[in-house]
């Protein structure tokens, strides 16, 4: 058995299968959609973040630069303080330091320096030791000299500062005022508010990255590889989160690099997507639910009429052709139902014809006729023909009222035809009270002669039962004569194209009819020809009654009376048969006196009617001279 069949065995019901496939396909489609949406969304989100980081980088740099400008303006305003210029002119160190601290406090600077025109530190707020030494940011001074002011991110010691240098003008630069603003978490938090990204400030000194300030809480331990600093954006894990990040080199100086790490939380960026995923899940569940309902409904609309049709087909299989299925839908199912009902109607009609045909003709013939195209024509077959007649019916028919007569006849014919059917004979026709039947056609039957004889005995037996009824009803007791002959005859559909009989014609048939009539002459009930006898003698006890000349035939034909089945033969019947055979032999050997004694004895013992006939023949022979060629053959009486 193929594997697939095994696999689908659990789904015996159409409904289950439909559900399985519908939901399966739906799940596949949904899975595909989710996968694609997932990928596209992630890709888009990543691309968007990368782009946003790029934009943010610019904004970040711009903000830094604006902050520089703002601080520069503040410093410039401070530097124009005339009193401060006077203090500078005094060149008093302590006053200078104090005034510088006061100045720095005005703008909340974290560090302040006063640098002479020749670049040496005059005063500062961080380390008095530096006073008199060369200012550490000479490049910045040079820039300030060239551009009027300068600003830069710088590490002082290990702290990142935003340094601003402006000249104190009187009106020529007399000293440089340098203010430092620490870049700490607070500053970055302000930048974060504007840019909506996490910002960390890193310094790179001697190949190690140091986090100086960060908006990430808590500050991540550093795990940033150096080589990615100019990457287009990269993922990295802090202790708890995944970030898409970008490194921006703010300052690249000999003393070290200052790098900004701007980044966006990946899970936060995907929050929208998770919301979408929930929505997708809801839609998926809803559509699966709806699809299930739809599939169930569809399965019902398909399987219910199918079940109805299956019941209909079963009913028709059982012969209930009148069964009509009730499918009211307008679709293909409805058409199928209508076709099914039409088929049932057709079958019913055909069955009616078949039944009627079985009544009109023999069921065997009806079956034969229905199974082939009906054509006129016949064939020569060996058959056994049977003729019956009711003795004296014509005379009683004149005395009885027609209804009673028909009732009597119908009862008789019904019983007889049922016997013929029972013995698989073909009822050819009724001719008044006569019945014509045959065996051996249309269905070939090797035991046709035996069947016919058996049937004849059964018919006589049935008649005895009928006579019991008739006696009780006060009806005349009728007896039946039966003639049987076996031989070739033409059988077939004979008649016109509109009206035909399946019947037989030929000498065999004629002889059977003659034998039926001859019963009257011999006083017998069942006469069979020698040909029939040959085929039935093994099973039925018969006695030869005579040898006759048949009109139109050269051969003489022995005729026999059927007594009984061998098994049912009584001793008296057996004795009768033996004695009659002796008597007949004596008669044929012209030992007439002997024959007369024997026949007389038979008549005396058995009231044997044939023996009486022979006694009459002996008297006729005694009355005249016996011809030299006496062969004991008589013409078959008509």
């Amino acid at each position, binding site marked *: 058995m193929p594997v697939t069949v095994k696999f689908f065995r659990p789904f015996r019901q159409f409904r289950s299968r439909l559900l399985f496939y519908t939901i399966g396909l739906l799940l596949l489609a949904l899975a595909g959609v989710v996968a694609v949406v997932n990928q596209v969304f992630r890709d888009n989100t990543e691309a968007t973040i990368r782009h946003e980081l790029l934009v943010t980088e610019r904004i970040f740099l711009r903000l830094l630069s604006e902050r520089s400008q703002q601080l520069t303006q503040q410093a*410039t305003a401070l530097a*124009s303080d*005339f009193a401060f*210029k*006077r203090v*500078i*002119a005094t060149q008093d160190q302590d006053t200078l330091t104090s005034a510088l601290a006061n100045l720095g406090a005005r703008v909340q600077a974290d560090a302040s320096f006063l640098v002479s*025109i020749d670049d040496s530190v005059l005063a500062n707020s961080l380390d008095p030791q530096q006073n008199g030494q060369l200012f550490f940011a000479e490049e910045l001074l040079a820039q300030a*000299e*060239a551009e*009027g002011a300068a600003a830069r991110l710088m590490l002082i010691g290990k702290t990142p500062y935003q340094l601003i240098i402006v*000249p104190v*003008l*009187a*009106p*020529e*630069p*007399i000293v440089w005022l340098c203010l430092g603003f620490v870049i700490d978490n607070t500053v970055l938090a302000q930048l974060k508010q504007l840019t909506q990204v996490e910002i960390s400030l890193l310094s790179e000194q001697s190949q190690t990255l140091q986090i100086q300030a960060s908006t990430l809480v808590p500050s991540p331990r550093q795990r940033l590889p150096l080589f990615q600093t100019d990457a287009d954006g990269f993922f990295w894990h802090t202790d708890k989160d995944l970030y898409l990040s970008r490194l921006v080199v703010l300052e690249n100086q000999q003393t070290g690099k200052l790098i900004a790490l701007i980044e966006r939380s990946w899970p936060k960026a995907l929050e929208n997507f998770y919301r979408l995923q929930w929505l997708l899940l809801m839609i998926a569940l809803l559509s699966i639910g709806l699809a299930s309902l739809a599939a169930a409904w569809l399965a019902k609309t398909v399987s219910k009429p199918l079940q109805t049709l299956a019941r209909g087909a079963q009913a028709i299989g059982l012969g209930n052709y009148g069964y009509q299925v009730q499918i009211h839908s307008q679709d293909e199912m409805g058409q199928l139902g209508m076709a099914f009902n039409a088929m049932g109607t057709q079958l019913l009609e055909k069955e009616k014809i078949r039944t009627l045909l079985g009544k009109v003709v023999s069921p065997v013939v009806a079956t034969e006729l229905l199974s082939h195209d009906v054509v006129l024509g016949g064939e020569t077959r060996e058959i056994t023909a049977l003729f019956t007649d009711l003795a004296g019916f014509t005379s009683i028919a004149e005395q009885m009222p027609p209804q009673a007569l028909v009732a009597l006849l119908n009862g008789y014919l019904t019983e007889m035809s049922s016997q013929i059917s029972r013995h698989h004979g073909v009822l050819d026709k009724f001719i008044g009270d006569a019945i014509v039947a045959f065996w051996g056609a249309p269905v070939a039957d090797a035991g046709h002669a035996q069947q016919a004889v058996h049937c004849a005995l059964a018919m006589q037996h049935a008649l005895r039962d009928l006579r019991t009824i008739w006696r009780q009803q006060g009806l005349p007791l009728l007896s039946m004569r039966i003639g049987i002959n076996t031989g070739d005859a033409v059988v077939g559909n004979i008649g016109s194209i509109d009206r035909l009989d399946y019947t037989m014609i030929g000498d065999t048939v004629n002889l059977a009819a003659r034998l039926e009539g001859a019963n009257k002459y011999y006083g017998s009930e069942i006469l069979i020809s020698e040909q029939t006898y040959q085929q039935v003698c093994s099973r039925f006890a018969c006695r030869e009654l005579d040898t006759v000349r048949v009109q139109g035939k050269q051969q003489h034909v022995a005729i026999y009376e059927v007594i009984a089945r061998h098994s049912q033969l009584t001793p008296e019947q057996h004795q009768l048969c033996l004695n009659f055979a002796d008597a007949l032999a004596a008669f044929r050997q012209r030992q007439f006196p002997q024959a007369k004694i024997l026949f007389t004895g038979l008549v005396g013992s058995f009231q044997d009617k044939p023996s009486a006939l022979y006694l009459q023949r002996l008297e006729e022979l005694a009355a005249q001279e016996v011809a030299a060629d006496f062969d004991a053959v008589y013409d078959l009486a008509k």
Partner: protein
Amino acid sequence: MRTKAMALILGLLLGNAHAVTIRVNVLDSDGKPIGQAAVYATPDTPQPVARAKPKTLVIDQVDKEFVNHLTIVQTGTPVSFPNHDKIRHHVYSFSEAKNFELPLYEGTPAKPVVFDKAGVVTLGCNIHDWMSAYVLVVDSPFFALTDNQGAAQLEVPAGHGYAVSAWHPQVKKRPPGNAKVTVAAGNSTELALTLDLKKSFRPIRLPATANLDAGYR
């Protein structure tokens, strides 16, 4: 004209009729002439000079600017700062050569400021950041300003050695250096001095159309 006249007077005072002209061309590092540069010659051997009481010079304030921008004076010269504007000015200098203030005043201050120490004095106005002027105080009566071609002439008595220097407010090294020693024999001498100038760096007045008299650019 004034300088020439002074030189002439000095020459006459010295009783030396032989005055020699030193032609000085002041160029920048690109070889372009620098106008309005100060040029002065200091004699190698200090000469006893019978000096008259120095005449008071004037640096005006007109329309919120100093006039002139660069003034050369011999040590000991008093300079007056008359204010011709309707508003007050606050002239000051924190220079080593002369640290002074003329707090908000109108008209001409009562006393002129005497520049008694050689050096550069940078002048400013406390209430007008863009206002600036320079006074070059030299220990010599021989000085001149270059014209637009960067040329100046110094009439000095012959037979002396002079250190000829040039200075400009935008010169890079602050204590005015850039000196060259030249011995003048009998004839006129011509020499070139090179100054490295830096970008002018000071608050600059906004255009008048802005109708604002203060600001930076």
